[in-house]
């Protein structure tokens, strides 16, 4: 663990974190919902100021979504994955756009692909998809091959190409 990471673990002790070490310069800190925003605020103030990514994992068997905030420290290269799990049937969380303005777009993307609402972020227009009418596509219960079969059914070719070829070669009479 780098210095900044051990400091972060030390500072976050009061938040009851569950810390896993992924490698020398990367740890995962799991927190309960209500502590995430203040933990991110603290981490930002002690050097983890770069937000690499906000992403989401759909744990359908546990009926939970896991939100992962990946923070990076430019001083000594420490990476912290701050993770929290939210209820899958009523997915709601709080925006971090006040801390990192670019988070607006990550949250918009997660809303589009997983259907999670972010309180405080009211710009939830579709970003990548156009005229989407199904459930959010990155959820595990969305089946893309079924969707494309329904939406874009197979075409049947009326012409019998093989028969035409045989006629052309003179193998059978047309």
């Amino acid at each position, binding site marked *: 663990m780098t210095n900044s990471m051990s400091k972060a673990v030390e500072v976050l002790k009061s938040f009851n974190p569950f810390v896993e070490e992924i*490698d020398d310069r990367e740890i995962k800190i799991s927190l309960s919902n209500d502590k995430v925003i203040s933990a991110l605020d603290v981490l930002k103030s002690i050097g983890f100021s770069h*937000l690499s990514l906000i992403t989401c994992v759909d744990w359908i068997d546990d009926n939970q979504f896991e939100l992962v905030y990946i923070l990076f420290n430019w001083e000594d290269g420490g990476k912290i994955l701050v993770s929290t799990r939210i209820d899958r049937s009523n997915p709601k969380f709080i925006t971090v756009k006040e801390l990192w*303005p*670019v988070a607006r777009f990550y949250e918009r993307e997660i809303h589009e692909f997983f259907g999670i609402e972010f309180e405080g972020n009211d710009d939830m227009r579709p970003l*990548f998809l156009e005229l989407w009418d199904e459930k959010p596509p*990155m959820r595990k219960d969305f089946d*893309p091959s079924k969707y494309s079969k329904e939406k874009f059914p197979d075409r049947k070719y009326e012409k019998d190409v093989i028969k035409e070829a045989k006629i052309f070669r003179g193998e059978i009479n047309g």
Partner: protein
Amino acid sequence: MGEVKLFFGPNHPGMHGNFSVHMYVEGDIVKRARPLPGFLHRGFEKLMERRYWLSNLALIPRICVPEPDINEACYAMGIEKIAKLDVPERAQWIRMIVLELARMANHLSAIGGVGGPIGLYTASHWGTADRDRILDIFEALTGARVYHMYIIPGGVRKNMTPQIEEMIWKVMDYIESRLDDYENLIFKNRILHSRLKGRLVLTREQALEMGVTGVGIRATGVEYDIRKVDPYLFYDKVEFEVPTATDADAFSRVYLKFKELSQSIKIIRQALEKMPQSDKVNVPISKGSALRHVVPKGMAYAHIESARGEFGFFVVSDGKNKPYRVAVRGASYPQGLYGIEKYLPGTRIEDVALWLATMDVCAPEIDR
């Protein structure tokens, strides 16, 4: 004068890939701008969940077209982190050489790409022609020019032969000999100066707030480079400098890319010298045939310094033979979406293409 709505893209010569910006202009000045990504959305992250760990290799290079090797490298490094694999030493050196060659190819085409929007077409022709020499190396090494599928989890696909090493030495000498010409003809050119100097300034505070990485932040005088701060592969065993500038304008961003070319040459030469001879260049990620490989449960984030900034893969495994979730951090996500909305207002119409070119906005990695 009333406000007029103009469309930039989705097809535009100043832009690689399809990306659209809706500009609301008064006269020549952009008043508001709205990025509209999604033209290249192919659902890579979903597709990856439905394929085997190794089948994905054929898919992921397509996430970023100008520099495909970074995708393979991040994906492989993510898996190796979860599975705690030890990659053979020679494979790591070869990876470094491939990544630096890819960076050079990307920078050369980026220098060429700036030539388009400003009307200095020599830059385009030279950049493209010299990039082709690097693609020749890739063809010899991997069998493909653009999508190499060469870096695999556990190492690299094939060993590098002495003939290819010889070829790389020669091409490096050639490109180094061209650098003075580039400097004199392109970077001292008045067209380039008058179009780029002092334009599209992004200050250090703005860049840090936005989370811009790569030349965007280094042009503001900060030495932020993941190769130095969070060294992966053997970047801590080679000597190189991180070029910075203080003007924070479009010119310094392009000029830094040019400066990085000579650093990449330096890294490649050191790697070729230090690389040990060995036949072992890959290890399997688990037992059995390649399509039945499983990765133990876990999650990891692997990032590297691509030509455009921090590029990363977040990989989650549930212990089965397919990834549970893969998320891609595109290097140009902040400047391509938030940056356009916030910092394009106030600039001139013709500078919009320059923002996209000098900030390296890469549509396929934003849309994925």
